[in-house]
Structures are given as C-alpha cells and as structure tokens.
C-alpha cells in the first residue's frame, strides 16, 4: 500500500497483488449452488489457500495498469532479432475465440471433433507445402520442443538401423535451444565454425562429420541472417556418412515460397508458428513448434497422428515406431488456429511477398545503419542483420547501453549479444509488417544514439532515462534470488 500520494502522472504505480484487496472481496461470480454440501474427510482437507481477495474493479485496474508498463507489437516496432515480431492480426484471435474451438474437449468423440481435426490436418498440409517436406506433426508446443522431437526422431531412425550415433554437429551461430535439445536426447554437440561470410563451408562440415555423428543441426536462414548457401553440399556430405540434416526453421519468415527445404537436403525441420505465422507471443508463449520430416522419417513422428479417410478425420496411435508423445494432447491447438487463419489470409503469393518484404526491410536497415554501426559481415542479408558495438566501444558505450537508450526513444531494443560469434551483437529483425516510416524512425533513433555515443556517452551509459524505471539490477536479482513475495 502506498503510504503517501505519489506524482505518477498518467501511468499509475501499482502494488503487488497480495498488497491489494481485502479479505472478503471476490471478483469471481460463484455459480449457484444447486446441490448439497458434502464435506470431504477432514484428513484430506487442507487450509484455505493463501490467495489475495479482490473485487472485479481491483482486478481490472491491477492488470490494466500492469499492461501499461509493457511494450507490445501494437505499441511500436519491436525489432527483436530471431523472434520475428510481426503484427498479430486481430481476426485470428477472434477465430481462436470461437466457442466451438475454445470450448472443445480433446476427448470429445471424433464425430464431434471433425472441425478441429480438419483444421489440424489442413494446417499440416499447408506447412508441408510451404516447407517442401513430406510429413508433419503439430504436437510440439514450441520451437525447442520441436527440436527435441526432431532429435528424438533422428535418434530413433539411427536405432532402427541399429546404429548408436553419439554426436551431433552444431554450428557456433546456433540458438541455445539447439545444443540443449540435442543434449536432452543424449547427443554430444560438436561445434563447427561459420566462415568469413557468416555461413558454413562444406569443408568445415566434412571435417567433423564422422560415422558416430548422428547428423547436423543447421539453422537456415541462420542467426546471422544469412542463407546457408552450401546446404545442399553439406547435406550430401552428412547423408553420405549416414547422418541426417536437422534444420531449425525459426527463421523461415525470410524464405516462404522462396526455398524448398526438402530439395535443399533437409530431413527434419521445425517451424515456429509464433514467429513466421503471426501468432502472438504472449510475453513468452504459448507458441507451437511443428516438426516436418522427409518420408524416411515419417514412421517416427509423435502419436497421435491425424488420419484422413474419405473426408473424415480420426486420431491414430497405431505407429509402433513413433517416438511417442511430447504433449498431453495434440499440441497447442489455440495457436494452430491462428496460424491456419494467417496462412489462408495470405495465400501462397501473400506468404511469398511477406518474406520478400521482410528481407527488403532488413536490408534497408542494414544499408542505412552500416555507417553508424559496425557490420561484421557486410553482405546482403535475409530477414535480419547483425551489427556490433565495435565503433562505440572506444567511447565506452556498449551494446547493452545502446539497447537501453533505444527505449528512451520509444523502441523495443533489438536482440543483443546473440549470436555469440559476434562480439557485442545487435541483431535487428524488422519483419515485413513494419511500415517504412516506422523503420525510418528507428533508423533515426539509432543514429541519434550513435551520435550520442560520441558526444555524450554518459547519457547512453546511464540509459534509460525516460521510463518509469532506470536500469534494472540483474546481478542483484541473480545473486540474491527473491522469486516469490
């Protein structure tokens, strides 16, 4: 509780939930009791849970105020590299909110679930068509779970051939989830470095590819924003030694309709519906990470799978070589609805155009900022471009400082310090839904900061200045963890 009046302006202070309310309030409308009370055995009954008690107005204000402390895609450009923060169409939320979908029970008899199964089946077909792969599972709940599922399938594939391969090649530009997922499957990641152009050379892969290698995990387009041009050759090298090619398709937004992953030699691919297919990220999920495979790997897909027979859909667990389940039900259906709606709204041409404009926006940013910020790889990029703080370091201004300073100018900062191969990386992914004006404003803000780094570095180092908060002490949080109140 606030002790005295605070000058907060229009953005209110707001205490923690349990500092609000009063015992005896309730924001929930208790359904009418139409049956008699049957006490539980006292031996089972616990204390009344220690939860705060609020009225509906308390609740509404609490979360309305909290929301005002957040930036979202609707507030402005959110150029987080590798995250594909594109606009989330409202109509998709409406579709997901249709009562028939949101109220559907996963164990509803199949004849009552045809609409849902139909949607999932068709979404799978769309993803196959977009990726050029042969089969798909929608079950993984996010990208990382897609990776895990994919790696489990690779493991199962080798086991089915009585091979027990123990390592997996992972480039140094990979996202952290790649090695982590591989490790969960018992694979030891073997690093491979990208070349001067920021991509994998076939020779580098050939060097580490051995008989004990299960395959390679490659992100394409990669996290430096480049297309792995040697993918075909790399796949041949890996395949020749009996390995498989896993592709992290988190960056598919660059290449929809422009690349055929199957043709390029990929055996397993995961996609992020919450990136490429416009589903809202929810402040960290839920997402969906479908995994697509080449025909040879189809028997290993998770169960249940949706089977179509004469226009009727049913779920089948009858796949003895399946890796099993990764989700209690069929995955994040609510997310799938939005992705399905998005794909239908765009059509094949629309998706292709979206990718092209995403790439255009990224290259535009790159060109217009490369004099102000060091560009480690000065070449055409795909969906994102990666700068570093090399020009600012002499002024003792770091990537972190500049990220915080961008907030003062009203922008969410880009992804920073990733990929690890670039020292002080600043990874900008505008996505195709950013209008040119917004990008121009972003560029102006970045340039202003680059100027400040020279003329008033202290201002940048001390940022942010214009928010409710100054810079948060992350070290303190980790040193003395306080995780509950």
């Amino acid at each position, binding site marked *: 509780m606030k002790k005295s009046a605070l000058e907060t302006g229009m953005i209110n202070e707001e205490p923690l939930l349990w500092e609000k309310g009063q015992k005896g309030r309730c924001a929930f409308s208790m359904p009418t009791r139409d049956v008699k009370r049957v006490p539980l055995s006292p031996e089972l009954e616990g204390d009344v*849970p220690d*939860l705060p008690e609020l009225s*509906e107005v308390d609740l509404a204000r609490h979360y309305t105020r*909290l929301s005002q402390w957040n930036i979202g895609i609707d507030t402005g450009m959110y150029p987080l590299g590798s995250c594909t923060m594109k606009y989330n169409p409202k109509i998709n939320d409406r579709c997901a909110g249709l009562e028939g979908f949101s109220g559907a029970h996963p164990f509803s008899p199949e004849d009552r679930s045809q609409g849902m199964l139909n949607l999932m089946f068709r979404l799978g077909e769309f993803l196959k068509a977009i990726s050029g792969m042969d089969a798909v599972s929608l079950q993984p709940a996010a990208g990382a*779970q897609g990776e895990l599922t994919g790696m489990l399938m690779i493991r199962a594939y080798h086991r089915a051939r009585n091979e027990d391969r123990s390592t997996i090649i992972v480039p140094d530009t990979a996202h952290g989830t790649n090695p982590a997922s591989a490790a969960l499957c018992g694979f030891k990641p073997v690093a491979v470095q990208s070349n001067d152009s920021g991509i994998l050379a076939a020779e580098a892969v050939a060097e580490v590819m051995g008989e004990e290698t299960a395959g390679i995990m490659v992100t394409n387009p990669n996290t430096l924003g480049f297309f792995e041009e040697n993918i075909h050759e790399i796949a041949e090298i890996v395949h020749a030694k009996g390995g498989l090619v896993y592709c992290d398709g988190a960056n598919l937004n660059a290449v929809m309709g422009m690349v055929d992953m199957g043709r390029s030699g990929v055996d397993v691919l995961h996609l992020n519906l919450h990136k490429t297919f416009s589903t809202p990220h929810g402040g960290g999920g839920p997402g969906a990470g479908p995994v697509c495979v080449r025909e040879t790997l189809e028997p290993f897909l998770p169960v249940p799978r949706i089977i179509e027979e004469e226009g009727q859909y049913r779920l089948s667990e009858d796949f003895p070589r399946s890796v099993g389940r990764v989700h209690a039900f069929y995955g994040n259906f609510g997310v799938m609805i939005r992705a399905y709606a998005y794909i239908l709204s765009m059509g094949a041409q*629309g998706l292709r155009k979206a990718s092209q404009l995403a790439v255009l926006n990224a290259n535009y940013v790159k060109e217009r900022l490369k004099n102000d910020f060091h560009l480690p790889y000065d070449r055409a990029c795909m969906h994102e471009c990666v700068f570093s703080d090399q020009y600012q370091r002499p002024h003792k201004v770091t990537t972190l400082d500049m990220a915080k300073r961008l907030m003062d100018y009203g922008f969410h900062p880009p992804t920073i310090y990733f990929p690890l191969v670039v020292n002080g990386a600043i990874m900008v992914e505008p996505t195709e839904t950013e209008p040119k004006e917004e990008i121009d404003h972003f560029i102006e803000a970045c340039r202003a900061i680059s100027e400040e780094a020279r003329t008033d570095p202290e201002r940048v180092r001390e940022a942010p200045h214009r928010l409710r908060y100054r810079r948060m002490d992350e070290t303190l949080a980790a040193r003395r963890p306080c995780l509950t109140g």
Partner: protein
Amino acid sequence: MRYLPHTDDEITSMLDTVGATDLEDLYSAIPEDCRPTRPPDIPGPLSEWDLIEHMARLAGSPGAGPARTAYLGAGRYDHYIPACIDSLLSRSEFSTAYTPYQPEVSQGTLQGIYEYQTLMARFLGLEVSNASLYDGASALAEALLMAVRVTRRKKVALSRLIHPHYRRVVETYLVPAGVQVTELPQLENGRTDPSALWDAEDLAAVAVQSPNFLGCIEKLAPFGAMARDKEALMVTCFTEPLAYGILKSPGSQGAHIACGEGQSLGIPMSFGGPGLGIFTTRKDHVRQMPGRVVGKTVDKEGKQGFVLTLATREQHIRRDKATSNICTNSSLCALSAAMYMAALGGSGIRELAQLNHDKAAYLKTGLEQAGCTVSFEAPFFNEFVIAFPGYASKPYERLMEKGMVAGLPLGTYDSQWEGMYLLCVTETRSRADMDRLIEEVSRLARPE
C-alpha cells in the same frame, strides 16, 4: 494485403537504397537446387469475411446444449472463465509482447509472472515456482529429469495412476536420457500401491498424481515419507489443480516438486492446448529447476522491479548443459492463472473446489442409485469411475445417441479397466443436467 504496408513506390525506393533491382534480386544467394519447383499448393487468399465464415463452420456451434451433456475430464476441465479475464488478457501489451528480456519495457509481464509464481507456490505449499512450462505432461517429465540431476541417480518410480498420456510423455523424455522407469501398481480402492517402493533402491524420484487418473485422491504423506527415507525426491503431479482449493497442499505432504497442468485455472480447453505447465519446488533445488523464473530486484535508483533471473541454468547461457531446453513457455497462460486465482481469492477457490466436489458427489450418488457400480471407493474430487448396469447393452453408445457423452471409456488404457468410465463434473454442470443423465441411465435397464 492489409498486413503488408509497403506501397509499390516504397518498395522501389527501398530497393534503390539496398541496391537491388527487384524483390527477387534479394534472393540471389539462394542456389537453384534449394528453390521450390512450383509455388506451394495453398488456397486463398481469403478475405477476412470468408475466413471467419469458414472458421465458424469448422468450429461448429456447440451451443449451450451439447457441451453441457459431456462429462469429460481426464486432463482438460470445463470451468467457467470470468469475462473480465478474457478482456484483460487480450490487452495487446500483454498478448503481443515477447519474452521479457528487456525488463525496463516489460514490467507488466514481469510483475504479472512474479505474482503468478508467488500465488502458485503458495497454492501448492512450496517455496518457488518457475514462470511456466508447456503443459502438465512435460512438466512431469522435466520434474523427473530434475530429480535425476539433483540425486545423480537414474531410476524413477511412477504411479500407474498417473495420466497415461503423461506417462507416455515421461517415457519419451526419459528413455533417451537413460533413465529407468518403474511403475507402482494400483490398489483395489483406486489409489496407488506404495508397497513396491519398500525394496526400491537408488531412486531419483517417486511420482504420484493426485487426484489421480481415476479421480481418486491419493494419500500423499506416505509417499513423501518413503521418498525422504530413500533420499529420493517426491514428485506430485496433477491434472486438476482446482482440487488443491480444498485438499492438503502437496508441499505440506512432503512433496519436493509439485507440477502438473494449470488449464483449469482460467484457461479454455481449446481441444487440449495451449495449457499451462506448472512447476513448483523447494528453494534448495532452485538452481536445478527447469524453465524461466522472474526475480525481484531494484533499478539503479533503488526502485523495486522485476527481471528474468538465474539465467545461468538456461539454454541461452548454458546451451547443452542447461537444466532444460525450454525457451518459449506458456507465459500468457500463467498470467491467466494468476488472474483467475486472484479473481477467486482464497475463500473463493475453496468454495469453488467444494462445489465441484459436491456436484460430482451428486452425480455419483445418482448414478449409483440408477444402477451403476462405483468402481473405486477412495475419495474423489470432481471425477470418478463407474460401470454401467450389467444388464444394459451398449449403455455408453445408447447415451451417446441421446447426445450425452457419459465420460471417458477407460478400457483402451488398461484392460483391467474394461467397462469402466471416467466421469467428470465441474461447476458448469447443473443439477438439472445431471438429472437428465441419471434419468437416461435408469432407463437403460428397460427394453427400448
């Protein structure tokens, strides 16, 4: 296309800046042998209006009728969700934000998740909660992997009365890690038989679900004691967290980890997902905990705020040594759960849990009187198992013809459950609804 702001003029001018001749030119780096041979076979584009019509057709219109006549639980529960929660949750500042990597512009999400962690830890009687996992099944799998890390042992004992899908997910996650899974069988009363634990050795964890898959409330304390004796971690999981509105909390019964599904707490069933993977544990284990976690801190000027913390456990720092591979989790669902718990409050959640129990008790008694056999005698929360009267032929199918889904047939999960049905009743089923089912069941005996 309304989502693509670029006009032709803008494209031309931007291409100019970039030094490309046309949009295709941006892709000159893509080798021919990686390109599609034809455009993807996708219908559309659909207009907003054709889309919503198409979707409405797929979604059907279950109306109040049909849904009302299904008595399905088993991992997804039909609970009321206040309109207020929907409306707050859909504020785009929450729904369209990314993971709060940049705390100064994400305090809404961060405080919201910190509150979630606090409420959830309190609710389950444990000390810490993470920011969420995908769903109940993977939460259990992660709990067991954590137990393996904490104890450095490679064996876990699992109750057979854990949801069969959860057990399947556990298997998927654990087998590659070389963890051996043994199962604890079922007692006649519908609870888990702990006796196999007496001789078990080198256990990393003992896991039970309560209420279990048969709806029965497990006595957790003995498992807790047993785990303590064996220096294993006691893992409690659940598919129906609302039960802890009235039951003793897992923490109070000795659980080291309480985890499971949070869908019941303000999240729609949505055909099984998204849900909310709840994960709570004790403070000592926090550095082995999977998933993100929000911590309290201060800004430069000493003002209280929140940040993602203990990141050194996580994949983006620790890579293959991380405590989990999880990145995107179920943040927005965690926010719903916090809103829901706060909407109910302590007394509210107790009353709602009691009401669930009482409604289920009403139906159970009614069905018993209508000739059904109650399969297990252990106390239950809002689910229970029955067999239809022996004299009735195809009872389940006949009820289905009347439009009623009389629970989940258990036979497909285990042959010993043949002829048994798991029914669920929440606060959304009225007495009148239940009376209709009871009435139909009592008619089953009579010839058609």
